[in-house]
């Protein structure tokens, strides 16, 4: 079965979504992430969607689920690299992503996660954070 790889980077997990998600792939990703968060004690999950050119309510629900489940395990979720056209469209669709923070790119997302989990901060929150909250 096709799977989306999850990479461990220090205390964070990095997922890069590069294909169109369909039900089973998305559910597999939710499972994998939750297993890895609990197994590795990761404190943050970064989801890179810079290659994703549409986010519909289905995908929005998956991102929301991942954030909600991670939070239960004491990890924060940051979605990075949302294309501007996607961000504009989400607002009009009316989709909010509760519990999901956003950042411009992976680097800024990691900085944001560090401030969220309260370790020594290496960067400040970008104005992009919370754009779709």
């Amino acid at each position, binding site marked *: 079965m096709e799977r989306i790889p999850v990479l461990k980077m220090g205390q964070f997990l990095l997922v890069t979504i590069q294909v169109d998600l369909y039900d089973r792939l998305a559910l597999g990703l939710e499972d994998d992430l939750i297993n890895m968060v609990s197994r590795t004690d990761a404190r943050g999950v970064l989801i890179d969607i810079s290659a994703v050119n549409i986010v519909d309510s289905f995908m929005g629900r998956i991102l929301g689920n991942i954030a909600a489940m991670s939070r239960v395990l004491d990890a924060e979720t940051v979605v990075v690299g949302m294309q501007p056209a996607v961000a504009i469209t989400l607002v009009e669709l*009316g989709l909010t992503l509760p519990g999901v923070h956003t950042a411009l790119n992976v680097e800024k997302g990691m900085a944001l996660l560090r401030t969220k989990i309260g370790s020594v901060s290496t960067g400040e929150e970008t104005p992009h954070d919370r754009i779709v909250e």
Partner: protein
Amino acid sequence: MIVLLSKEILAVATEPEIILFRNRTRELAIKIGMGLVNQTKLITAASELARNMIRYGGGGTVTLEVISAPKTTGVRLTFRDEGPGIADLSLAMRDGFSTGKSLGLGLPGAKRLANEFSIQSEVGKGTTVTITRWKNG
């Protein structure tokens, strides 16, 4: 006056077919020179309506048309299913209304993302939704 420039019909009953249909819609939008933001709005609306058709309507067909109006060109999509239909359309069009324990965003969101939107539904007969997104506008 609206002139029909091209027309094709795709069956959409499974998830992989949604992806194929989305890709075809994007090709048509690019072909007429639609900008990226309008393309994204069109395809997102299309994705919502295709998912509804599969989830609630048991699958159906989408008619993809390129149409031209006096000053612009656009893509018109018509989603047809022969599912159970929708008993209360004004309720279904409301933000947050869902019989599927979902977000209830698909129909009202698709309406906001399209330039033109119409929906007909008859209980026991099925549902037809048409959206148009113009190249500029």
